[in-house]
């Protein structure tokens, strides 16, 4: 919740410059001068406001588009400036509006309708005075238009003295200041002037006087002369038929009245002029006040900026230093210039960084030591893993709780372990079926008192092969390590055991051959000699024959047996040569020609050749066919078949028969030496056959135990050297 309010506050602060810029734009629109309004101050104000709006808009846009972290302290400075300007702007605008209202009210008071009426009346009064003077002059002059004396003086000429005296009386009577008489030719006939001598030089008639004579109307005009104002009246003198002259009179207006009247006029004019420019005056007031306000805002902005910069500079330095510390640079230090709280903060920061630097140095040293130890440990682990991976012996590490901790690839390859043999599996639970002996070995090792145990046992694999295993177990327990368990090393010694067995039998065969073979020949020769020399001397020759024949047969059997032993014991190295498969098949066909039940398929590719010792292969095939013929002898329709096929890089010889087959229990021992199901068999035939196959790099397998009994001899087509084997 607090985060949300802080975030909204930050967002408001980011849009604040834009809001202020909008405010200034609105102000510009409101203050935009109307057409014809030539007010430079207004344009200056607009320019200042536009400048402020532009700066605020630019700054606001920069704040909004700002994605990366700004320079340290800049945001705080911006906040301070914005807040200070806003705090100043609000009262300034309030004062501006209040002042504007006051100006409006003041203008209303100044140009009050009562003042207006008063001035109108004053002006009317002054105008009335002028009008009255002119009317009086005109009315009085009307009495002299047809004055007989004046007409006579203009028409016939009268004495200047009497005429002047007459004019003086007129002037005295009417209250004029000057009276002049002109004839139709604008020549002055006479003239008098109050409180002064008559002007010797005649006055010139102006256009209005001529107009008066021409129109025959009494007219007047106002003239100003040397600060005086004079009302001049013109009265045409009408003769019997037309205008014959002009009477011109002057009335000097009283100076005091004139001054007052002119003052009234001037005030009226000034007032009206002000009223006329009322709007302009109001706008001038507004613009001046706005200008002052804007100047104050500008100055306040500058002052706020300087103040904020001065205030936030140490904070910015601290923030920048803190950021560098965060990035791992502990060599940073901030200046402790001031003695206020910021200076104290800088001092504390420097102290903290110093301590951090010391701690970091200590940590770095410890890390280096730890790294070295870790490297050493990794090296050891790598060596151990490589060793285990390349070890041909199966290694199984089992914890004290019976859970498998480690097993290498060799143990998987040897035992063909199923998928559930994984680290952390319990060895007692996963050692089932043919692997039961492994679990039993662990159990025995776990419960015995000794630290080591070694056992040999056989394990049957899924494909029927039997493994002869040597398992060595060691208890792992040391006080300085946190692990206790058992290490099981499993070796496949099947070949070794087989070799030992073969060597043992070979030795037996050699000794038997040595000890038995030599006396057999004399026994056989003696039996034959007995048969030849004493047959006629015995009573029952038939019995004699049977007995001697039995001796000879058994000796021959023993000789064959010993010959087989010799063969097994001294199996020669195969003499490899290329021979056509079809040739071997045809030889077999010829050999078993007398056995109709034997079917030999010779229809194979003539170019199919294999590399082998033909004598040994021939021996194997004869052995297999003999066994098949013997096994199928008791059948009603015995059938033995031999055929060859090509499989990858090998030639396979298949021998099948439909005899009684091989018992299940005999299958596993079928290829062992001296194991035979026949009464007179030596049990070496299949053992020798398999040995020949293996010496060729091939194999001899029982593919099917019965119906049909199916043996398969596989011989590679290419020669395999002894070393390769």
């Amino acid at each position: 919740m607090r985060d949300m309010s802080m975030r909204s506050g930050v967002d408001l602060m980011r849009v604040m410059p834009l809001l202020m810029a909008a405010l200034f734009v609105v102000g510009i629109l409101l203050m935009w001068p109307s057409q014809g309004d030539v007010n430079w101050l207004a344009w200056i104000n607009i320019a200042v406001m536009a400048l402020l709006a532009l700066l605020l808009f630019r700054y606001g846009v920069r704040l909004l588009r700002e994605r990366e972290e700004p320079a340290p302290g800049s945001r705080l400075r911006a906040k301070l400036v914005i807040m200070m300007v806003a705090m100043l702007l609000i009262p300034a605008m309030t004062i501006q509006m209040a002042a504007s209202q006051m100006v409006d009210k003041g203008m209303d008071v100044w140009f009050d309708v009562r003042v207006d009426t008063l001035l109108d009346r004053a002006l009317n009064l002054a105008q009335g005075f002028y009008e009255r003077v002119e009317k009086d002059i005109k009315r009085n002059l009307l009495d002299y238009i047809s004055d007989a004396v004046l007409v006579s003086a203009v028409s016939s000429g009268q004495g200047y003295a009497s005429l002047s005296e007459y004019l003086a009386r007129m002037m005295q009577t009417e209250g004029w200041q000057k009276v002049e008489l002109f004839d139709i030719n604008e020549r002055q006939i006479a003239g008098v002037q109050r409180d002064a001598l008559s002007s010797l030089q005649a006055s010139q008639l102006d256009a209005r006087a001529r107009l008066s004579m021409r129109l025959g109307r009494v007219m007047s005009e106002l003239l100003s002369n040397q600060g005086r104002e004079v009302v001049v009246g013109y009265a045409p003198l009408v003769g019997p038929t037309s205008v014959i002259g002009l009477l011109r009179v002057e009335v000097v207006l009283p100076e005091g009245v004139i001054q007052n009247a002119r003052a009234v006029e001037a005030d009226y004019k000034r007032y009206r002029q002000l009223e006329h420019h009322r709007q302009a005056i109001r706008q001038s007031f507004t613009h001046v006040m706005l200008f002052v306000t804007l100047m104050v805002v500008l100055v306040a902005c500058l002052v706020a900026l300087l103040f904020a910069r001065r205030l936030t500079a140490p904070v910015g330095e601290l923030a920048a230093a803190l950021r560098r510390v965060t990035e791992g640079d502990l060599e940073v230090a901030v200046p402790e210039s001031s003695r206020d709280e910021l200076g104290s903060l800088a001092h504390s920061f420097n102290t903290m960084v110093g301590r951090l630097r010391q701690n970091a140095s200590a940590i770095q040293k410890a890390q280096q030591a730890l790294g070295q130890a870790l490297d050493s440990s990794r090296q050891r682990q790598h060596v151990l893993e490589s060793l285990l991976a390349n070890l041909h012996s199966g290694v199984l590490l089992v914890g004290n709780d019976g859970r498998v901790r480690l097993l290498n690839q060799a143990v998987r390859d040897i035992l063909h372990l199923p998928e559930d043999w994984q680290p952390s599996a319990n060895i007692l639970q996963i050692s089932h079926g043919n692997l039961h002996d492994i679990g039993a070995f662990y159990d025995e090792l776990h419960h015995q008192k000794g630290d080591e145990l070694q056992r040999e046992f056989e394990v049957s694999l899924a494909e029927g092969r039997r493994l002869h295993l040597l398992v060595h177990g060691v208890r792992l327990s040391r006080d300085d390590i946190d692990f206790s368990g058992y290490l099981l090393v499993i070796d496949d010694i099947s070949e070794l055991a087989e070799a030992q067995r073969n060597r043992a039998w070979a030795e037996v065969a050699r000794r038997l051959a040595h000890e038995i073979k030599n006396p057999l020949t004399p026994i056989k020769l003696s039996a034959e000699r007995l048969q030849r020399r004493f047959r006629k001397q015995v009573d029952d020759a038939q019995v004699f024959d049977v007995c001697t024949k039995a001796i000879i047969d058994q000796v021959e059997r023993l000789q064959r047996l010993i010959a087989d032993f010799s063969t097994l014991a001294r199996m020669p190295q195969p003499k490899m040569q290329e021979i056509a498969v079809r040739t071997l098949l045809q030889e077999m066909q010829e050999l078993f020609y007398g056995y109709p039940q034997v079917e030999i398929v010779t229809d194979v590719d003539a170019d199919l050749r294999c590399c082998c010792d033909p004598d040994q292969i021939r021996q194997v095939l004869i052995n297999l066919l003999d066994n098949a013929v013997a096994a199928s002898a008791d059948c009603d329709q015995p059938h033995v078949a031999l055929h060859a096929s090509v499989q990858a890089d090998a030639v396979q010889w298949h021998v099948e028969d439909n005899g009684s087959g091989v018992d299940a229990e005999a299958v596993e021992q079928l290829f062992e030496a001296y194991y035979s199901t026949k009464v007179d068999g030596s049990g070496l035939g299949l053992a020798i056959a398999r040995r020949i196959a293996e010496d060729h790099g091939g194999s001899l397998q029982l593919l099917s135990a019965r119906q049909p009994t199916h043996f398969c001899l596989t011989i590679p087509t290419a020669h395999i050297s002894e070393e390769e084997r």
Partner: protein
Amino acid sequence: MICAALLAVLLLQISPVAAEEGTQMQLQLTQDVVYCTAKLSGQRERLVAALRDGMVVSTVWRIQLDRLRHYWLNESVAEITVVRRVEPDLLAQRWRLVDEATGIARQSDSLDAALHFLTAIEHVAVVDRALLVAGESYRAGVAIDLRLGDAGEAWWTALWRTDEATMAQRFHLPANSAPVEP
């Protein structure tokens, strides 16, 4: 005959132009001088109110004649200013009409005469005809500035003139133009 036809062409080319409502100007080309006649209308009520309030009213007529040039600024041939001022005398209810160009002043009892004096200039000589080049096009313009109140203005007002009305008119001086009788 030719002169009459040419005069007709010239008068047709420089016939009166109404720039704004009721405002007109007309150029008259004589043998020696180009004259201008112009009239400002639509300001009667404003002027009457100002004059009756006793305000000095001035009209400044700026007449300018430029030779039109393609692809370049026009060339100023002549520029004259006529200032007419009416000073009211409220006490005598008369109007003092002053032509500042000539310095001639006269009194008038008639408000209409004062208004006419302010709002119309008649047959004002603009330029010597010899300064115009035959076969060239020209633009004549009249800008009228109406000033209410005392004429004592600051110098900077000349920098920003707010003309009350402006009129402009283009004409082409034929290559073989002969002197034209006014």
